[in-house]
């Protein structure tokens, strides 16, 4: 299964993706709750966020994914607040316990899959410093989530970005 997490309007997406059975689309419904850092997804309802909304089962979804495509505005080198919120709500994909990976402390894996990550940032006049930060962020996410970075690309607007996404 592929997962597409994006901050565009759903009508901007190509029809072939909207109708695909293989792609689970995570869009902004305007009602996403914020991760409160309660760790309930680790110690109260392991593997599932305790906040009840459409994004409650992100960890479980990631556990079934082979590939994740992220399309996000580049906000100062971060994902946009919506896409970052989805990432923040996804930590139940990992276990609370720790391990050492590439000489750093990280969380142990709950699932056995290794997600391929393709990230497409868009935004006007993204600076080189912002690109460097965004690349560091994606690579750090991949290390934390035991994923593999396939590509990280930057585009000046969402239309150019959508033209170049490898669906």
């Amino acid at each position, binding site marked *: 299964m592929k997962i597409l997490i994006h901050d565009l309007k759903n009508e901007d997406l190509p029809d072939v993706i909207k109708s695909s059975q293989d792609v689970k689309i995570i869009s902004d419904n305007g009602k996403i709750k914020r991760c409160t*850092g309660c760790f309930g997804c680790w110690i109260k309802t392991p*593997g599932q966020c305790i906040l009840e909304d459409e994004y409650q089962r992100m960890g479980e979804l990631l556990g079934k994914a082979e590939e994740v495509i992220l399309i996000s505005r580049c906000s*100062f080198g*971060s994902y946009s*607040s919506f896409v970052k919120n989805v990432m923040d709500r996804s930590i139940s994909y990992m276990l609370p*316990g720790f391990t050492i990976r590439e000489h750093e402390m990280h969380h142990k894996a709950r699932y056995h899959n290794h997600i391929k990550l393709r990230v497409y940032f868009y935004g006007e006049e993204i600076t080189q410093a912002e690109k460097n930060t965004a690349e560091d962020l994606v690579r750090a*996410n991949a290390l934390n989530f035991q994923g593999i970075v396939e590509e990280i690309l930057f585009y000046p607007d969402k239309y150019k970005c959508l033209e170049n996404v490898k669906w």
Partner: protein
Amino acid sequence: MVILLNCSFRGEKSNTRYFLGQLETLLNEPCRHAALNRIKEEQERAELFSDADAIVLGMPLYVDGPPAQAVEFMERLYEEGRGRLKRIPVYVVANMGFYESRQLHILLSVVKNWCARLDLSYGGGLAIGAGEMMGGLGKIPLDQGPNKEMGQGLKKLAAHIGKRTDTEDLYVEPTGFPRRLYLLAAGMSWGRQAKKNGVKRKEIKRRR
């Protein structure tokens, strides 16, 4: 006046609030604590800057960067305040559960990039590793035991805030407390916390 803005969703109970409180004890000028949780309106965001001579953003690390609510705050201020915000220095006190404070460099870079976009002066950040442990050591003086390195970092940052000067980012970890011990202690604490919620140790690893 220095505004100490707590960007943690846990609010008053957060480690972030604790570290900002420790910094406050080292600043010899009026400070005001503010909580991002409670700031909803454009005017409230603008007032943070109009009321302050310097601002310190306290942030926990969420998934390798600032929490979504902090990113949203920065996005909104960029839209609302571009070219209109009072040009005050912005400092950061960041913390996280992992031991190696260098893992906070992305969070600090995001704030730095945001300051560059808004033409604000980035004054520097203090990155605190093993924050879950350091946040509970309030009874140990800042110049002693595991607090020593963090205490020096807080003092250095406070001195720069006092003079409104810039510092390079400062990275601190527990003094004399090795990573392997922290890893062991932190690992055991999850089982205890789960048990309090009626969750057995083996259920923590549940796949859905």
